[in-house]
């Protein structure tokens, strides 16, 4: 029987397989950040263990970093201590670190691909659930907890049970104005927040092949929001073109050898998936969330749902609770929902194409009165690129704030947060209660919808805007 892409990558990394025990899987790349690592390094110190492969480990500061004045010390003493702890740990254990202010600093899932460290066929882990992002390259990548971070630091391996395989096939092409973010939000609404649980999702089909690498990263990034620890896309010419000449990509003869191997990384025709979902891309429209989990989403043209109409009692109760928290009334057209803040950024949508999409909508327009818009590049390199293209001028001229790189308002561990009751349209990945600040209300949207929403002050797509 043939194997899936995920099975091929998995099998190639089994260090030890014994009946009745989990497989021991080798990890090719371990990404580290300040939030989920301090207790892991402490564990190593207490046991007198070194980092086994500092040369396969890289760290960055992202979750806590302020996005305004990079040269000033972090004002929050607890955040500052956490960042300083990472610096001490990286120095002590010999791990390469990209600290605040460094050219290479950025969100952990932005810098891996940017450096060319994320490559097809690799195993990648990080103490962060959005590690699934790296699956866009045909890598097997998933988030881990701090105990596992310590385990990987100490052994460069993880005990694993082979997950089940799920195919999400997206046939047809995305219509104009519909993006990778709309697609993944629609997929999550279709399969639910637990639909991918226990599975690795492989995204396939014409619409997936037609996505850019950055679009593919957006899709894979939110696999975890569908319950899957990992999402993958088979590498192809788009992947190779993105990787070519990146700092850590193979060079010369090694490049040709690598491409040959990478080309073999695809699901065999006779491979069997445990679960399969088929989506027709051509029917999709811009998609937004109305509730407090990422599965509670609808096309922008629809209205806030009526919980009474939901048959399943658990889902009905969840919807009632969500509407109450979100301050929404059933039947309200989604386009009538007014927002206070628009956030563009995160490991989902903080890359250069996202910023280009935002700038192209904002160009010649103004952010609505009373609306605050933050644009936070995913990395310092993304910021530099945007500035080289003049995007920051368009964004600033529209009245939005152009910030430094970091996770920022995606999870509000730094000073960028919503106040209680404040409502945002956000290009990030989670609309959980309080995610962007205690009492904050989040609608997940694409970068294009975020920009159009900033202009009108209500949830909107670029097509809704009048001509400039």
């Amino acid at each position, binding site marked *: 029987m043939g194997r899936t892409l995920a099975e091929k990558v998995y099998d190639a990394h089994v260090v030890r397989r014994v009946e009745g025990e*989990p497989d021991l899987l*080798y990890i090719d790349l371990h990404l580290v950040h300040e939030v989920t690592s301090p207790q892991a390094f402490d564990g190593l110190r207490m046991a007198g263990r070194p980092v086994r492969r500092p040369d396969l480990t890289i760290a960055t500061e992202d979750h806590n970093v302020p996005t305004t004045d990079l040269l000033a010390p972090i004002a929050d003493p607890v955040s500052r201590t956490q960042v300083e702890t990472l610096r001490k740990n990286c120095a002590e254990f010999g791990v390469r670190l990209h600290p605040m202010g460094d050219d290479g600093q950025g969100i952990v899932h932005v810098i891996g691909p940017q450096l060319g460290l994320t490559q097809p066929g690799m195993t990648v882990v990080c103490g962060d659930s959005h590690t699934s992002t790296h699956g866009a390259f045909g890598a097997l990548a998933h988030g881990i907890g701090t105990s596992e971070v310590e385990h990987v630091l100490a052994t460069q391996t993880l005990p694993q049970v082979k997950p089940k395989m799920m195919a999400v096939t997206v046939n047809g092409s995305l219509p104009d104005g519909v993006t990778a973010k709309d697609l993944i939000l629609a997929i999550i609404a279709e399969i639910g927040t637990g639909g991918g649980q226990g599975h690795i999702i492989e995204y396939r089909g014409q619409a997936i092949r037609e996505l850019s690498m950055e679009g593919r990263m957006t899709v894979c990034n939110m696999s975890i929001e569908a319950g899957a620890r990992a999402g993958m896309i088979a590498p192809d010419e788009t992947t190779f073109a993105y990787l070519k000449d990146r700092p850590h990509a193979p060079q010369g003869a090694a490049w040709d050898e690598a491409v040959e191997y990478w080309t073999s990384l695809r699901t065999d025709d006779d491979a069997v998936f445990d679960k399969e979902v088929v989506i027709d891309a051509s029917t999709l429209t811009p998609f937004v969330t109305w509730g407090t989990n990422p*599965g509670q989403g609808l096309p922008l043209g629809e209205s806030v749902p009526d919980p009474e109409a939901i048959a399943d009692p658990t889902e009905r109760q969840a919807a009632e609770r969500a509407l109450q928290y979100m301050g929404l009334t059933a039947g309200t057209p989604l386009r009538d929902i007014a927002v206070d803040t628009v956030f563009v950024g995160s490991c989902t949508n903080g890359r250069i194409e996202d910023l280009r999409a935002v700038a192209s909508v904002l160009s010649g327009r103004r952010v609505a009165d009373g609306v605050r818009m933050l644009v936070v590049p995913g990395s310092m390199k993304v910021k530099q690129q945007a500035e080289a293209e003049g995007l920051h001028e368009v964004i600033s001229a529209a009245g939005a704030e152009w910030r430094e790189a970091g996770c920022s308002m995606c999870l509000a561990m730094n000073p960028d947060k919503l106040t209680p009751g404040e409502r945002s349209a956000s290009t990030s990945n989670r609309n959980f209660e309080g995610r962007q600040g205690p009492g904050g209300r989040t609608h997940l949207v694409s970068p294009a919808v975020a920009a159009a929403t900033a202009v009108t002050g209500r949830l909107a797509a670029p097509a809704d805007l009048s001509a400039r």
Partner: protein
Amino acid sequence: MEKFVTHTGRAVPLRRSNVDTDQIIPAVWLKQVSRTGFDKGLFSAWREDPAFVLNQPEYAGATVLVAGPDFGTGSSREHAVWALQQYGFRVVIAPRFGDIFRNNSTKMGLLPVVLPAETVEAIQARAERDPQAEITVDLENRQVTAGDVVASFEIDDYTRWRLMEGLDDIGLTLRHADAIADFERNRPALLPTTA
């Protein structure tokens, strides 16, 4: 890690689905660099509501959390497990868990038990009728007993053994250091390093 063989305690019904790890422990608590003190952060936003179930005195000291489907979804933060344990929970029962949360739990000795939604509902209803009623979670026999409700649950042999022995993974893995070294010798040279 503390051994887990069998546990008897009182149950708290948490009648919510999709309890994500941001609710279990909000991000502001994640800035700590130690492993202790997370009990105060457990459900800290929800605990501001006096009607929240953990604020009801009759559930004080309960050790088994009984929740709706998709418990522990979202962020990989192991702090969620630490917070639950430090608050006093030894077991979480739900119809379905987030994968990473479930994994993190078994690394720390917090037992995640998957039971069918109807069984979970029955245990919740019992805990609501009688908050003092005890429930037994027997890992050795893979069985939950809550009054008339007796239900088997699944857990793989290896994880069960590891929890019952209280063994942490790193020590177990390092027994195979030779296999790791062999694997490393055969890794293709073209794979990237961060150096």
